[in-house]
């Protein structure tokens, strides 16, 4: 069974601080995606990484895919209150490309 574990589960920080969220698995994925979900809404895709060692930047967000394609991290610089939400990593691969979601990290950025 493929599992993705995220850490930390909960994070409460002040505006302007930096943070890193980790996503780890013992399985190899052909691609990994990060989503952000707000209450009452579906997850919104932030980024897809497909190459081991790949680093992608999206404004203040930096995403990294591990060399072995088993893990990933999301780093947010100078967090803002608008970054508050549930961050989900999701791995895909195989014939169906179904998404295996991580356990989620709930981020609260305080003003």
């Amino acid at each position, binding site marked *: 069974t493929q599992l993705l574990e995220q850490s930390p589960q909960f994070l409460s920080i002040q505006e302007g601080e930096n943070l890193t969220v980790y996503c780890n698995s013992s399985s190899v994925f052909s691609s990994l995606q990060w989503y952000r979900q707000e209450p009452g809404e579906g*997850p919104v*895709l932030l980024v897809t990484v497909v190459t081991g060692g790949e680093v992608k930047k999206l404004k203040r967000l930096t995403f990294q895919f591990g060399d072995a394609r088993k893990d990933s991290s999301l780093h947010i610089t100078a967090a803002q209150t608008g970054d508050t939400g549930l961050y989900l990593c999701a791995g*895909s691969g195989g*014939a169906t490309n179904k998404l295996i979601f991580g356990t989620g990290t709930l981020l609260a950025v305080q003003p």
Partner: protein
Amino acid sequence: DAGVTQSPTHLIKTRGQQVTLRCSPISGHKSVSWYQQVLGQGPQFIFQYYEKEERGRGNFPDRFSARQFPNYSSELNVNALLLGDSALYLCAAGTGREGGYTFGSGTRLTVV
């Protein structure tokens, strides 16, 4: 270009009843997947359909079934509802190739 639309947005059912949830994908997106998200957890894969054929099924009982129509819209049916079926049901549309999926806002099902 409208996003993925799901209906209804909220639903309350009693134990033992049956429910049908609907999803309309983005135009041109032939792949539709269904996920169940229990409060506080990540979404769990239920089904994937591509070009009207079932491509994958998650670890859910036979009470859960789905189908995809010629216009690529999809329905998820759940029979003999249990309290534990209460969750947010998400539909995701994709092109069927590698890459991200676009999720609908979900249907919040409450079983009482």
